[in-house]
């Protein structure tokens, strides 16, 4: 909502400065968004006289004018207007001036090799009218003696742009804003006298509101004005509209706009001669069409509120008029409409048809239902003043009567909510200045809600008014008490934070990417999931909810590699989605590492990052989070976006249905498809929701401290086993032989090739044997060694390598 200080002063008697006004507007909830000097440098435009013109040597249509800009100072100006002639008094804009229409700043320019020092302006360039043909012609008699003076006499005008919250339709008119300011003790609201208008003709157009279900229009007021002479608006009116960013069109349209902006009463003017046999306000039939004033044709659905005549739809009630009955400069007889439409239906219709107009914006927020007559009176008398004509009696059709709303307000509620006190007298004063009628009823106030405040429905809304106008700065701070009755985080939230920082501590940079993704990327990682489409995506690249974090992470990994970084690790912790319903989401930590673990340096050999690096990160993170590595089981069943031979699945306690993690190389085909170039790309996913939460706290997670100081012995074994045998199985067999004696198992070599039969491999293992009870003698050791060999050979088909 745009206003100016000048306009406000029409409604508010005030001695204060604009600066204070701006502060107060914000203080009472009418937030000042911007203050814009509407006419910067307006004083630069001068009245000037063309002394001489000659033809431009290089252009047929251009003239070079010598222009007197005051005190005999002459400027050479190149001008293309056909009416530029000797003796013409016009308006001159010097270099540095900003042309109001185009907002361009003038500079000294060479036009076809001739230097022009400024410009002679047309009315349209100065936003004075739409006239763009030729330059302004000022009356010689009036301006002869004013050559060199500034043309615009008004002082600098600031347009104040207010952000009006959707609950305050009354402040979509300058008067509403003035009322709020006055209530807050900022000036005094001026009582505007209603002009009595003489109605001397009959209202001869019949208006009827169809009584039907879902009728949006509950009241329709109108009056007929005959024999008007529509024209351009007078300057004061044009200036008013321009000052709040509206474009003047014609007197009749400008007047309706002016009333709308002044008192928030939208009006519509019809060319009465184009209405066939009266107006009917009815619900549309499906498929009806009409062309609106925005020159677009709309096809209507069933039950939209239309204003129609015998020939069909004229306009959409409360939203937009139609071209068929629009007023034009030659319009003679007009019908002025001032109606009430129900907010919800207005919004519904406008949304379906995707129309946004000033009228719709106001009706959907709620117009004062009692302003119908006032609007008609004000507009009609202005039209008569500017365009002449005779005014008919006002006709108001109604399907419902306005019900006065009352609230019983308990003044104690104010302090109960706000925490501070104001007197009952103060409350009454504020409410009455906002337009409420107050009556004391015992402990309570019976309040009559002003008709322009549809937002006020219950007691709490009254509290809000009182706090707002008293000032939020009156609320006294109550310091919070430092007391905690519940733990801040749940177990799973703690785990989330722990895993996040644990992964980061392993060299991964945390990224946050969007929860939606490009389906082209997501397709690679969605496994068996269906696409979860966003029906109104911001771009086709973000059209699905991600089924995996990889979809985004790999795209950003590629971007970073394209930036020239070679070795990097990134991760994200966040939601992935398995369906379109609330709750069909899981929290996942997903990481990607690209390039090499080490680059050639004076101290290190080169090595590509590989699946065992990422396996370490996953396993170590889980161990740090408190999961025992004894309980980990790993197999090679992984989704198809992993390298089928170099990836693994990790689960706890043999629970294969709920894998805790996948890790491995990303499938080379995917890298090829998305054109990602790196030496190696490995990744992991940890599924937080599959991790069982321990109910133990740290203090009871610790087992009894037991160590052995008896001598330990290490022995190496090499087994030749089938190539298919998994190291994990071999280790399991060994560790189960004697858990009291075998304290550590370490694989130190895996070998295939020479000296080993085909389809077999050698696994070399170092085993630490230690007793908690005694120092083992040679005999004991020999016994356990033999048992190890025998058991492994029996259970795995292995042969000890001699």
């Amino acid at each position, binding site marked *: 909502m745009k206003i100016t200080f000048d306009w406000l002063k029409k409604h508010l008697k005030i001695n204060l400065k604009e600066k204070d006004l701006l502060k107060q507007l914000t203080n009472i909830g009418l937030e000042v968004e911007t203050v814009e000097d509407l006419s910067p440098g307006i004083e630069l435009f001068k009245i000037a006289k063309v002394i001489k013109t000659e033809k431009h040597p290089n252009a047929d249509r251009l003239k070079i004018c010598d222009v007197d800009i005051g005190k005999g100072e002459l400027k050479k100006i190149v001008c293309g207007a056909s009416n530029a002639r000797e003796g013409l008094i016009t308006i001159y804009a010097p270099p540095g001036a900003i042309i109001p229409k185009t907002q361009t700043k003038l500079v000294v320019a060479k036009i076809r090799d001739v230097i022009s020092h400024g410009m002679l302006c047309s009315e349209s360039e100065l936003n004075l009218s739409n006239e763009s043909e030729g330059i302004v012609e000022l009356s010689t008699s009036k301006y002869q003696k004013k050559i060199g003076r500034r043309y615009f006499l008004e002082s600098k005008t600031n347009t104040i742009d207010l952000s009006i919250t959707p609950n305050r339709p009354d402040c979509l008119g300058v008067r509403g804003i003035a009322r709020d300011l006055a209530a807050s003790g900022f000036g005094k609201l001026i009582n505007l006298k209603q002009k009595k208008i003489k109605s001397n003709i009959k209202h001869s157009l019949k208006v009827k509101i169809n009584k039907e279900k879902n009728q949006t229009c509950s009241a329709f007021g109108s009056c007929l004005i005959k024999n008007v002479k529509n024209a351009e608006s007078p300057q004061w009116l044009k200036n008013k509209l321009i000052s709040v960013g509206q474009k003047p069109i014609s007197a009749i349209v400008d007047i309706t706009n002016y009333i709308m902006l002044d008192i928030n009463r939208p009006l519509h003017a019809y060319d009465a001669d184009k209405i066939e046999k009266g107006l009917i306000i009815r619900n549309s039939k499906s498929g009806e069409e009409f062309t609106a004033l925005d020159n677009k044709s709309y096809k209507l659905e069933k039950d939209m509120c239309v204003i129609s005549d015998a020939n069909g739809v004229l306009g959409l009630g409360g939203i937009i008029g139609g071209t068929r009955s629009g007023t034009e400069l030659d319009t003679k007889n007009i019908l002025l409409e001032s109606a009430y439409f129900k907010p919800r239906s207005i919004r519904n219709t406008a949304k379906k048809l995707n129309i946004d107009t000033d009228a719709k914006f106001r009706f959907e927020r709620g117009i004062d239902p009692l302003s119908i007559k006032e609007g008609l009176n004000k507009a009609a008398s202005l039209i008569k003043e500017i365009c002449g004509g005779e005014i008919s009696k006002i006709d108001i059709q109604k399907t419902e009567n306005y019900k006065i709303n009352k609230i019983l307000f308990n003044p104690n509620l104010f302090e109960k909510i706000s925490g501070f006190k104001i007197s009952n007298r103060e409350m009454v004063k504020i409410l009455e200045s906002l337009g409420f009628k107050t009556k004391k009823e015992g402990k309570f106030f019976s309040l009559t809600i002003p008709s322009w405040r549809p937002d006020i429905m219950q007691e709490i809304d009254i509290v809000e008014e009182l706090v707002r106008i008293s000032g939020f700065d009156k609320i006294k701070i109550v310091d919070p008490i430092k007391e905690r009755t519940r733990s801040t985080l749940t177990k799973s939230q703690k785990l989330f934070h722990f895993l996040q920082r644990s992964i980061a501590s392993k060299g991964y940079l945390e*990224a946050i990417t969007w*929860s939606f993704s490009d389906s082209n990327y997501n397709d690679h990682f969605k496994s068996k999931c269906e696409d979860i489409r966003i*029906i109104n*995506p911001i771009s086709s690249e973000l059209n699905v909810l991600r089924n995996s974090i990889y979809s985004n992470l790999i795209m950003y990994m590629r971007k970073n590699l394209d930036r020239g970084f070679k070795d990097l690790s990134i991760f994200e912790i966040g939601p992935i*989605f398995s369906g379109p319903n609330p709750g069909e989401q899981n929290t996942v930590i997903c990481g990607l590492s690209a390039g090499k673990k080490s680059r050639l340096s004076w101290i290190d050999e080169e090595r590509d990052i590989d699946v065992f690096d990422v396996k370490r990160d996953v396993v170590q993170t889980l161990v740090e989070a408190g999961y025992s590595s004894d309980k980990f089981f790993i197999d090679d069943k992984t989704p198809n976006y992993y390298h089928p031979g170099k990836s693994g699945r990790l689960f706890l306690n043999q629970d294969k249905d709920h894998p805790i993690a996948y890790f491995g190389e990303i499938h080379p085909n995917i890298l090829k498809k998305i054109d990602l170039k790196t030496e190696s790309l490995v990744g992991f996913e940890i599924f937080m929701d599959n991790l069982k939460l321990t109910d133990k706290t740290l203090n009871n997670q610790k087992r009894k401290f037991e160590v052995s100081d008896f001598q330990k012995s290490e022995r190496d074994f090499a087994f030749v086993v089938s190539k298919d045998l998994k190291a994990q199985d071999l280790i399991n067999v060994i560790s189960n032989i004697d858990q009291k004696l075998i304290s550590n198992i370490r694989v130190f070599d895996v070998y295939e090739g020479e000296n080993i039969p085909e389809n077999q491999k050698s696994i070399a293992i170092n085993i630490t044997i230690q007793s908690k009870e005694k120092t083992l003698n040679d005999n004991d050791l020999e016994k356990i060694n033999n048992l190890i060999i025998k058991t492994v050979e029996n259970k795995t088909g292995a042969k000890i390598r001699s």
Partner: protein
Amino acid sequence: MSDLKKIKDDFLLKLEKKLSLSEINEIKTNLFGKNGLISSQFKKIGTISESEKKKFASELNLIKDELQNQINFKINEIQSVEINKKLEKEKVDITLPERTFVQGKIHPVSQTIDEISSIFSEIGFSVEEGPDVENEYNNFTALNTPDNHPARDMHDTFYLDEKKEKLLRTHTSPVQIRTMLKDKPPFKIIAPGRTYRSDSDQTHSPMFHQVEGLHIDKDITMGHLKGCLNYFIKEFFEIKKIKMRFRPSHFPFTEPSAEVDIGYEIKDGKIVIGEGDKWLEILGCGMVHPNVLKNVKVDSSKYQGYAFGIGIDRLAMLKYGINDLRAFFDCDYRWLNHFGFDPLDVPTNYRGLSR
């Protein structure tokens, strides 16, 4: 002079000279070898009369210890000289670069969430969560924003179905609804998380982060609201004084509603919070609307309280001098590395938010 004394003096004299390791070993053999001088003296003990035996033995032991110590000392001296000589040859150029260490980082949004949680933890809030996909009821209707309410225009919503029943939550406020439906009052929670609006330009990202706050109890007033936010802002920006302004506003789910601005100024091109005469909007808040309480079956004649919603990304930008919101989700390695935090920098109550 007894034999013992002579042996001692002779050998101590010998050991004072500069000796090689083999010369020392020779002396050692001469003294303590099988037929060494000291060893033979020990053999004599048996032949000495009982009356002198004790004295002799103790004297002998003393001399033995003294000589042995002197020999060990000489050996150590020589060995350490040799070790030092060897180490001298092993010297490396210690200015050569160390092995690389890859530093991981925590995203500034995550760090900020941890900071926020830590601050609110101190004054008794616990953390709640809700799903990113919400139904229309929780996101709007239950929050007193019925269909066709113009306030819905302020939320450009991503929908997942044509009926517009499922959507990506446009704010964290539906967590209020979920929390209050699930439990009984009092409530004192914050709910940080991802939020979505179909809006994308320099200052808007289709995804951003909010933290919701909700405190409902028997007599919670706007004074508590002001106190809570005043405390939070001071703690968060780690400054003693804060300029804060409550400005009336409108949210359908709170009444009265306010937006909160904090004072700032630009010093040397950097934003300084808490001083100056410029205002910056950082959050929206208000007293929970009785209609909302009714929707979640909380008796508004017994319980009342406040709610607030803060833009987390915005807070992070202000605190850490980040200019561009879009960069948060752009995943540029250099940006993550620059603005990220060491994972060991866990914000806590006892050691404060920052190092």
